[in-house]
């Protein structure tokens, strides 16, 4: 005869987690205590409950001791709830007869007093044991996943993720804010440590994106609104007016020639302002798509309403449309990859380095443009004053590792500084001085690159630059003095140079917080988006179905960015190819016989999951849409809405348990 005889039989287990829990919580005491609680027939502790032997122990007890409830006190349910639910269900018990107690993150890790911590563990355990009695067997529902993917950001991360997904046959929407894809990588000259030409390796990928039948590329566009959840996101995209009809423009550039501004005179974003552009412009020769754009901020027609509109006249294909308005696209996707990138640190914030004051102080990104063959000087290093430098200081760690600006090391600056040292030397034969705190060159072939630069005669001075000022002994005051302590020679040195290059760190984009809210993801105080787990879920976010790639998650180099983009694409594919997602059965349901049909719940539901059945005069909840927020449950005047996993008796018994109200002696199995 069955031992249960209609009785509740609870198995309780507490995990040591090595010393993570057992180092603080007296697990033997908790086990002894739990064994005295009603309905508990098994009470054990074990070194690692999540290990195979730990799970097998639960399964063996379920079978031999005929357990019908399981409680495990271990880490956060976030980590191992699924593990123990699986173990429970594999032993033939409904997985929702399992309840987890977090006694690590919310107890052992945050308390120092072992006695109080043990008491707290016992309270939490009593609460769970009290609650689990009322659990019911539930089934998980599944919903299909929409196979299309949204990729936000058209830098190398977004490009690589889009191509990976598109090549796997998935439809991708790639949304980019500026008029061309390519991101920062398109601005670089060569890439470390192999010195491949950035354009040579990037532009084929850019045109592959443009021409891929599975990719819809929307440049000059922004995501305005995101609704829904994993598998079923509804996204609204704003396509800003380019004032050019995409389908008609062939990129002939006649309109630029015809512009009433005969000379380019506005800040050229792509060249970091080192050259000028007209209000109608092509961002750069390999811009993708090859469409010009009219900037309403600088175009005289938009500013004054008066212009001969020579651009309109010049276009034989009638592609210029100054009346173009923004359009909005609504798409449905199952997964989203956020690859919104970074911005370089604003060097003027380190006031004493003179950026913006002395013309021959440059940022690293400006120098990338200066040495690029398609840059403002066609690759000749000609400075703002028209001269070519004979000596150059490269200042490391600008804005990085500094409590006054940013605490973090941006990881790429040492290596790009070495690369710029090589390229500048190649272009100018100048003497190059690298002022550094620590040279950080981890990664494949990176330290070999450092050695090579040393062999090329680049000078390294260990000391953070303290001051940069004009050299008064130079008649024209063009030359700059770079002052630092050479900490290895132990002397204060003043090095006169013609050019200073500031190796600025990587910082989050200004609107990171808005983007975070838009996609319901999280970001750290500095503004980089947070991955679900730094080691084991590096491209996931805390929102299912939304993944991260590239520098929006933290500074990284191109190889790591591409690897991460590939990983994000793979994570999206894994969801798409499964075809469905399992939903937690914590949905609400109507007890029809008690529903009075007052309709008060209908407008309250944030997910529009409740409808009203006119025929029955009752409310109805769509389980696929219900997210289990509980709003309707709490609001129902007749108490006729219940929620799975959170029924009144479950919650009340949990509360009674933690308050140690001994309300039940024996419960009868339902």
């Amino acid at each position, binding site marked *: 005869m069955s031992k249960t005889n209609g009785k509740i039989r609870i198995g309780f287990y507490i995990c040591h987690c090595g010393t993570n829990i057992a180092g603080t919580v007296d697990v033997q005491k908790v086990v002894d205590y739990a064994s005295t609680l009603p309905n508990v027939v098994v009470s054990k502790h074990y070194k690692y409950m999540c290990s195979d032997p730990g799970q097998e122990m639960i399964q063996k007890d379920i079978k031999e001791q005929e357990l019908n409830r399981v409680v495990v006190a271990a880490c956060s349910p976030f980590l191992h709830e699924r593990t123990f639910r699986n173990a429970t269900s594999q032993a033939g018990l409904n997985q929702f007869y399992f309840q987890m107690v977090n006694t690590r993150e919310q107890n052992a890790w945050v308390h120092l007093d072992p006695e109080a911590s043990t008491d707290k563990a016992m309270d939490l355990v009593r609460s769970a044991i009290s609650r689990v009695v009322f659990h019911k067997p539930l089934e998980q529902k599944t919903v299909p996943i929409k196979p299309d993917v949204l990729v936000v950001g058209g830098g190398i991360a977004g490009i690589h993720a889009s191509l990976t997904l598109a090549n796997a046959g998935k439809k991708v929407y790639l949304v980019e804010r500026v008029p061309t894809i390519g991101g920062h990588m398109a601005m670089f000259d060569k890439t470390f440590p192999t010195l491949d030409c950035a354009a040579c390796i990037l532009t084929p990928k850019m045109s592959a994106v443009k021409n891929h039948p599975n990719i819809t590329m929307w440049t000059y566009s922004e995501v305005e609104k995101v609704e829904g959840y994993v598998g079923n996101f509804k996204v609204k995209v704003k396509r800003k007016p380019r004032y050019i009809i995409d389908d008609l423009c062939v990129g002939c550039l006649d309109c630029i020639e015809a512009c009433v501004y005969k000379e380019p005179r506005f800040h050229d974003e792509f060249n970091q302002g080192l050259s000028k552009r007209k209000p109608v412009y092509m961002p750069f020769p390999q811009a993708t798509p090859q469409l010009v754009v009219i900037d309403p901020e600088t175009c005289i027609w938009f500013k004054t309403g008066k212009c001969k509109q020579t651009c309109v006249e010049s276009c034989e294909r009638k592609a210029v449309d100054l009346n173009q308005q923004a359009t909005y696209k609504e798409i449905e996707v199952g997964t989203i990859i956020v690859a919104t990138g970074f911005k370089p640190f604003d060097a003027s914030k380190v*006031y*004493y380095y003179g950026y913006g004051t002395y013309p021959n102080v440059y940022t690293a990104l400006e120098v990338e443009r200066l040495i690029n063959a398609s840059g403002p000087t066609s690759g000749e290093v000609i400075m703002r004053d028209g001269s070519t430098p004979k000596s150059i200081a490269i200042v490391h*760690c600008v804005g990085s*590792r*500094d*409590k*006054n600006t940013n605490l973090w090391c941006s990881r790429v600056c040492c290596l790009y500084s070495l690369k710029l040292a090589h390229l500048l030397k190649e272009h100018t034969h100048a003497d190059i001085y690298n002022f550094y*705190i*620590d040279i950080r060159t981890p990664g494949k072939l990176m330290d070999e690159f450092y050695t090579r630069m040393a062999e090329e005669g680049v000078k390294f001075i*260990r*000391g*953070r*630059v*303290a*001051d940069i*000022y*004009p050299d*008064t002994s130079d008649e024209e005051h063009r030359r700059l003095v770079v*002052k*630092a*302590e*050479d*900490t290895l020679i*132990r*002397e*204060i040195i003043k090095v006169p140079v013609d050019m200073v290059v500031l190796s600025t760190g990587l910082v989050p984009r200004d609107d990171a917080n808005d983007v975070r809210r838009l996609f319901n993801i999280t970001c750290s105080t500095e503004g980089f988006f947070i991955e679900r787990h730094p080691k084991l879920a590096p491209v996931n976010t805390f929102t299912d179905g939304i993944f991260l790639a590239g520098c929006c998650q933290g500074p990284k180099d191109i190889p790591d960015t591409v690897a991460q983009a590939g990983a994000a694409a793979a994570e999206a594919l894994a969801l798409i190819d499964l075809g469905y997602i399992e939903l937690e059965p914590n949905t609400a349901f109507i007890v029809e016989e008690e529903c009075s049909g007052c309709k008060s719940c209908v407008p309250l539901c944030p997910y529009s999951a409740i409808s009203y059945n006119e025929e029955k005069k009752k409310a109805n909840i769509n389980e696929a849409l219900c997210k289990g927020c509980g709003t309707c449950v709490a609001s129902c005047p007749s108490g006729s809405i219940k929620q799975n996993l959170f029924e009144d008796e479950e919650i009340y018994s949990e509360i009674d348990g933690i308050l140690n109200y001994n309300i039940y002696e024996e419960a009868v199995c339902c």
Partner: protein
Amino acid sequence: MIVELDAIRGVSLDTIYDSPEGKLIQTCIQCGTCSGSCPYGEYMEYPPRRIIKLLQHGLIEKAFDTDSMLKCVNCYACMMKCPREIHLTEVLLQLVKEQTVIKLPVVPAELQKALENNYRYGNPMGESGRKRANWVQTTTVPIRILSQNPEPVDVLWFVESYPAFHPRGQDTCRAIAKILNALGIDFAILGNEEKSAGECGLLSWESGLAEALVDYNMAIFSKYKFNRIITSDPHALDAFNFRYKMYGFKGSITHIVPFIMEHIDKLKPMIHKTLGYSVTYHDSCCLGRHNGYYEEPRALLKSIPGIKLIEMVHNRINTLCCGGGGGGMWLDTYFKSQNMERLSDRRIREAIDTGADVLAVACPYEIPRFEDALKVAGYDKKMVVKDIMELVSEAMEE
């Protein structure tokens, strides 16, 4: 940025490593920004970076065998640029400097004399304390002296020693008195009861001299009722804001420049005269770097019609010290004997390079230091050194 007083109250070199400040010192990455920022870094055997390393390794005694820290002029340059926000000037270097002075075979005579004078007469120049308020007789506006009329007053003006005794300081005092009077401020001074706040004689907060002056001035303050203190000396501002608070001072202290800026709307209609000067402004270390008043002095200068403001190469957080702080005011002879460049000479060349007519300052040490440096520089174009208050007063003339 400024250190939490509770974190360092009572710390000594022996205990600093276990204090919250010690935790910061442990995070030093030895980047050398401090030594590179130090105006005298090249003359120190143990510049700030090496001092920190010595402390980390328990070898700080080595630093006392040299005069390195005697050369620290309390300019806050190292502290403000430190990427680890170590409070070098406020804490560590002070403690090392104190021990350095104690262990020096001979204390430089000029410094010794200034310290003694401060102790005996309450001012570093050794003037009689009974003459401290004499300058009041040279003004045309009424100035209330609290000992004569102890009624409660809104603003207590702490005059300090250089303004009270130095002829050029007295010029500033007369200008301030005129401005305060014109603005209708209810103000008074302590007169002969006042003694030096002690900042510049204070090489460390542990010194008996410092405590004697702090105790004295605190006792005088407790005699009278006033709402706030103002001063034209950024060093006194620093003393009250920082050191005195460690001894329980709870009053409100404001430098004259931000104080006047509070009343700028009332002041503007009183400015009648256009001053056709080109002016360059020298940021005092204490007023600018340590207390963050970079823009107020410039705004006050710009409120005077006709003034054209030109910046020196080093300005704001990157200002160059005049060399007068941390006892430097009385170490010029010693520094010269060490073949060290006088910092006011270095700074005056930058001022001259601007081509300005006037070098404007907001610290009483700077007028004599820069006037002296101008003579040494042999500048043929006429440049004058003026306190901002003198310029404001001049512009108020009919």
